[in-house]
């Protein structure tokens, strides 16, 4: 055992309760997935009750800077209470609110005259944030622990120089049974560019109790070379925050062999977070 690792274990023991951190796990919305170490998080978005909510990273603009950036577009600064700072501003025809409390940020829009409703949702969502919470609507380092919503969406993009992966979810009123990959359509397009399409895999696949449609396509065109795309799509259950429509998409311009282990790691790792 390396001395540094022993030291880390000792330190962890001294601190007592904290479990070892799995740096490869990403929690988003009602799901937890493994992120292969080779991929970095490129973008993430979470929305509940129509409120975009996120936890600040090092790249986050400070609140004071945000206010300075908004400048003359600021319309008012609502009193949101509980240490929440907020600002209404206009972009084009849109009336938007940004709010911040500690590490948590929120954003949404509202028609003029209906600002109070938006402020209530923003306040409730921010105040429901629990740092380190394992259950609830995850935004990364913590979760919004609040009654489930019929309007929840998430999007997580992970990438390196050759691979892009996107995991996205959306609550649905009816199962989203549309095709998310169509070999015929892809063939038509490839033919237009003088290329061809090979279906590498197509079928049903059950992950975390969700049976979705999986498809792997390889597209080659003379100009752009080879593109490989994998998709898996679960249509979702009506009005269910815990079983929304889920889409996993991975693509690369490198060989399929590069994509496959990444795909398997992520797809097989999907687990649901308890909504309670």
């Amino acid at each position, binding site marked *: 055992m390396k001395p540094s690792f022993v030291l880390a274990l000792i330190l962890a023991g001294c601190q007592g309760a904290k479990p070892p951190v799995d740096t490869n796990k990403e929690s988003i919305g009602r799901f937890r997935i493994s992120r292969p170490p080779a991929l970095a998080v490129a973008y993430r978005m979470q929305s509940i009750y*129509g409120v975009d909510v996120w936890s600040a990273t090092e790249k986050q603009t400070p609140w004071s800077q945000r206010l300075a950036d908004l400048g003359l577009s600021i319309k008012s600064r609502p009193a949101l209470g509980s240490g929440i700072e907020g600002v209404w501003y206009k972009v084009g025809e849109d009336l938007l609110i940004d709010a911040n409390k500690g590490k948590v940020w929120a954003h949404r829009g509202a028609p003029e005259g209906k600002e109070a409703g938006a402020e209530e949702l923003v306040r409730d969502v921010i105040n429901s944030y629990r740092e380190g919470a394992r259950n609830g609507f995850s935004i990364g380092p913590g979760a919004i622990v609040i009654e489930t919503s019929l*309007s929840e969406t998430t999007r997580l993009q992970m990438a390196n120089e050759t691979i892009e992966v996107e995991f996205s979810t959306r609550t649905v009123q009816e199962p989203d049974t549309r095709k998310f990959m169509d070999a015929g359509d892809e063939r038509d397009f490839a033919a237009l560019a003088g290329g061809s399409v090979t279906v590498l895999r197509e079928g049903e696949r059950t992950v975390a109790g969700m049976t979705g449609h999986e498809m792997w396509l390889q597209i080659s065109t003379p100009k752009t070379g080879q593109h490989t795309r994998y998709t898996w799509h679960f249509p979702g259950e009506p009005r269910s925050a815990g079983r929304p429509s889920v889409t996993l998409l991975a693509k690369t311009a490198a060989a399929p062999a590069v994509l496959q282990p990444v795909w398997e790691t992520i797809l097989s790792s999907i687990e649901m977070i308890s909504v309670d």
Partner: protein
Amino acid sequence: MSNAGNPLVKKHDVDWNKVDEYKTGLSTKLRHEFEVRREAIPLVFVPGIMGSHLRRPGLPPDGKTDGLPNLRWSTDTGWVLSNLILADSDGPRRRALLVGSPRQTFNPDYLEVDEATPPGDGFQGIMKDYQEFLNKLREYKEWGELDKYFVFPVYAVGYNWTDDVLRGGKYLAKKIDTIIEEAKGVTGLCEKVILISHSMGGLICRSASELAGSRSKIAGIVHGVQPVNGSPAAYWRVKAGFEGGLLDILVRRALGSDGTRVTPVLGNIPGGLTLLPNKNYLTNNKEVGWLKITGSAKPIAPLPKKDPYQEIYREKARPKPDLGEAPSNNAYWGLIDPDLLNPDNAVVPGGNRRDRINADLNDPWPAYLRSLDKAESLHDLLSPSQGPLQHPQTFAVSGTGHDTAHVVELAIESNWVRSDSYPSKGFRGFFNDANGDRMQAVLQEPTGEGDGTVPLSSAEAVNVKGRPDPQDKSFAAEHQGAYGNDFGIVQEWAIDAIKTMAKHRYHEQRKGAAAK
């Protein structure tokens, strides 16, 4: 002026249209040589919808912001393969690319043309497929006698096709000024351009000419497959997605293959709504009503009776009746299903108190109406009831031989099993009849003469009898590729039209010279 070569010779430049003017004050001790300066008439190509590459302003086109590429629309194969695969180009993503996040509504400043800096000939900003024709124009040598008086530099002007045509026309007007100045800088003489339009570009050109004050700077406009009074195909596609052959694949990729994918895009951009039939639209059979509901026991009069905006576009589409609603009164034929306008911000009925507040705040209908108002204003200005405004020197070509929606038919039949309103490339409106029986109105495939998108009646709405050769013409051409090499006859016709306009310019100037 220069006499560097020979002290006894003085050289002068004279504009071709001023050779008849007397020159006074010349020294008789020198030999004077006059070089006739030709006039530049820039040929400015204005593409159709989706023919211009668009980017987020102020950001590097090869980067990403908010999880989306800064280059928001391109027709390059590599971009399409990376960004418009079906899986990641569903309705919400398409809307996000062109309109912004679910919290945003249409903002004309959200996108700009991805042109070079400085723009140069403008080719970077437009679809590469157009360049077959533009390069042919650039290399064209058969101008004959016109070559003595004119040069024809070739430009392209891309524009933000998501925006309304009125603003697009003003944008083009400014570009015309810039191009004239630039050409003047090169040749010394340039006063007017000739515009060549494809599809929606025709509306932009007419808007620049007739509404934005550019008419006097335009020698003429060559229109290709212009939806002068709109096209029912725009309605058909909002309901059912984009169909068609190989050349339409790109369009299908961009705008969607079913109503759930098309509505979040076309329903949120004024530019898309401008392609709908306007109040002057007539079918190929000269009828006002282009939306026909057939198969009903009781005859239903075609819509619109007068105003498609009030009777169809402002009617909220409800593709299914409410539970227990019999007979139902749901306007399944309305253009836009509000539930599809902003899918990531969709109102889901019921839920808890916060869900109900959220639903109350999320109505996308007002933003749609704002975009629709812009389209209607443009239509009313550009196509008043007495007929479409157009430049006096106009030629128009229309395409034929392709099934085209000059009318849209919804055929009523009994429904026992169907429940999906938006199958791929189809639409079904469900309702309960007076007897309480379940019925469906099924969207029928387009039939009618046209180029596959624009019916003949609309493309020919600017035609005028008695125009000089090559006259307004129809050819067996398809909409998207009308100027492509597959339709060399259209290219030849366009070049002939340009020659006629240049000749007109010659006579206009000579007449002026003679009068002096």
